[in-house]
């Protein structure tokens, strides 16, 4: 009898939490999953930081299938979750259809622009950060050849590559940049073995600094660079700690800040396009105890000058996605 009441009570509790209106925010991870050491994990960290600082909780789901995108959005919206934050450009199509059905719910999407009155679109100026680490790569290189390894071959990653090349050429116009993409499918985000092979190929062509903009594939790039005694550059999160003294720097894209801000603003979330760049701290290069010996005073001076110039608007880095071309190769 007591066991039965206990079970019924628990069932009722679950049913209640499932149905009751919750004012707590929700976070939807893309198919890559929560713990990818990069993009999605940064979002999770931002949400956890918000929850910890404010003593609140948030709902989350890792998707299993494409059909669940719309389902997760609608179910959270119907349950009263607000705001609903999602990571990744793949939500763009679905969100533009779902958002008008829930005018009182606020949505935030990262890495994509969705033109709806109740959506905040957070996009990052990755080309600016890539420009900065490109300058550092050119300064650290002794051979005059540096490498770039992208994940999936999409315009977003070409935007990284283009900014990087511009930064390299700004320091050394004669430098050679070897560019490789890991693949053309989402599997390219998580293929460290291929990342390692590409790194070896680039080293054999003379590269002595390699920039990985490839999600989980970058783990293999950084590992091989460290093994072979060349320098590497991490991406999205600060990855300097992964191989202390071997990672020159990391191009930080503060997805965690974007998620934190969205949850913090809660119902007062501003709508519209929200650009995070060097100027507002959304994009930066990483400097910590793991790489301080690698970053010379001269390097730091020049990069900080460029940072100020970008913030002030006197230096404009070309954005590949604005016209799908890159002025330098």
């Amino acid at each position: 009898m007591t066991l039965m009441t206990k079970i019924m009570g628990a069932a009722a509790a679950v049913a209640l939490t499932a149905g009751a209106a919750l004012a707590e925010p929700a976070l939807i991870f893309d198919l890559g999953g929560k713990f990818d050491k990069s993009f999605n994990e940064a979002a999770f960290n931002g949400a956890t930081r918000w929850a910890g600082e404010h003593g609140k909780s948030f709902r989350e789901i890792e998707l299993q299938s494409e059909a669940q995108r719309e389902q997760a959005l609608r179910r959270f919206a119907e349950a009263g979750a607000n705001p609903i934050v999602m990571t990744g450009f793949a939500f763009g199509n679905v969100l533009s259809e779902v958002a008008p059905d829930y005018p009182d719910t606020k949505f935030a999407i990262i890495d994509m622009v969705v033109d709806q009155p109740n959506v905040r679109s957070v996009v990052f100026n990755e080309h600016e950060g890539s420009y900065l680490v490109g300058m550092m790569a050119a300064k650290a290189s002794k051979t005059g050849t540096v490498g770039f390894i992208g994940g999936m071959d999409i315009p977003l990653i070409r935007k990284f590559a283009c900014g990087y090349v511009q930064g390299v050429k700004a320091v050394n116009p004669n430098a050679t940049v070897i560019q490789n993409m890991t693949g053309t499918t989402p599997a390219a985000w998580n293929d460290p073995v291929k990342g390692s092979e590409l790194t070896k190929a680039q080293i054999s062509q003379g590269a002595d600094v390699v920039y990985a903009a490839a999600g989980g594939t970058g783990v293999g790039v950084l590992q091989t660079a460290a093994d072979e005694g060349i320098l590497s550059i991490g991406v999205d999160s600060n990855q300097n700690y992964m191989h202390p003294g071997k990672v020159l720097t990391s191009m930080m894209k503060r997805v965690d800040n974007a998620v934190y801000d969205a949850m913090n603003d809660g119902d007062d979330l501003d709508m519209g396009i929200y650009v995070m760049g060097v100027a507002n701290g959304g994009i930066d290069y990483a400097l910590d105890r793991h790489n301080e010996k690698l970053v010379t005073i001269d390097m730091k001076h020049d990069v900080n000058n460029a940072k100020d110039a970008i913030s002030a608007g006197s230096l404009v880095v070309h954005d590949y996605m604005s016209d799908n071309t890159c002025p330098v190769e």
Partner: protein
Amino acid sequence: MDKMPQWADVVLIPLISLLLAAILSALVILAIGENPWAAFKLMVEGALMRSAGWGYTLYYATNFIFTGLAVAVAFHARLFNIGGEGQAMLGGLGVALACLYVPWPHWSLAILGASVGAALFGALWALIPAYLQAKRGSHIVITTIMFNFIAAALLNYVLVNILRPVGAMDPATAKFPEATHLPTFRDMFSTADNIMFRGAPANVTFFLALAACLVVWVLIWRTRLGYELRAFGHSESAAQYAGISPVKITVIAMLISGALAGMMSVNTTMGESERLILNSTEGAGFIGIAVALMGRSHPFGVLLAALLFGFLYQGGAELALWTTIPRELIVVIQALVILFTGALDNMVRMPLEKLFLAMRKGDA
């Protein structure tokens, strides 16, 4: 005389298998500190107690009906087609080409055209393994599973290099034109003041799947071709002696099987995403094997098994939404059901057969 009555084979064995899977799943959920009864209730409420839940359950079931029928038809000729996944992928390409490049005036014509496209592409993808099996004796299990990988690579190439709109990031085609959008259950069953199936992807393709069940039943048990197919499946040499060409039957069975698997894409590509995406099949081709095994290769059994798996998929999504049960564990629960109903069939069957034999001896 059979070892046990028909009803035991069709009803009792699947039920016992399900019960075993449920008990094991409950233990797994208990082990991570959640309440299995509450989880089960949540699955039932989310999948069957709301019209939107039904909308998802039936959407998944539609996929599984097509792929289940595909495996079942081939299995009647004792051909084990595990290439449903690849055939469905190619079927998606057929749907996309039909929807993008033909100016359809109305969805009813478009669904016919897209079904033909899907069936044609799916059947063509099954034709090569079928030919290799019939003429060269290359085992169909090996070739069909290898063709899944070729299909994935081919689709990847076509989407990334040919069909992707300029500047888009997703490896996907452009959105299909408005006229090809299929009516969803919401459009069909909602009244002005009572919106049903809100946001659910179930669409008119479900009825196409029901029709496919009927057609397959007629084909297998009421036509000459179906008789030849079953005769060939029971004994190749006897069929040959009766004047049935093994080459012809192998190829035809695989063509029908591939066409059915391909038609799954009408549901996912035309009905749900309304554009062709890279990962539209999501393993439904493999689930079809379990569905056919559990449904005893009978269209009605396939329908019931597909509904069960649709429930598991939608219920699993509800668990992911409202509990802290991680998604990997939800896959474990789904896998347990497949394991018990498909792979471990004999574990339940053999003791049960012994039991029935013993009972019969007791009677005599």
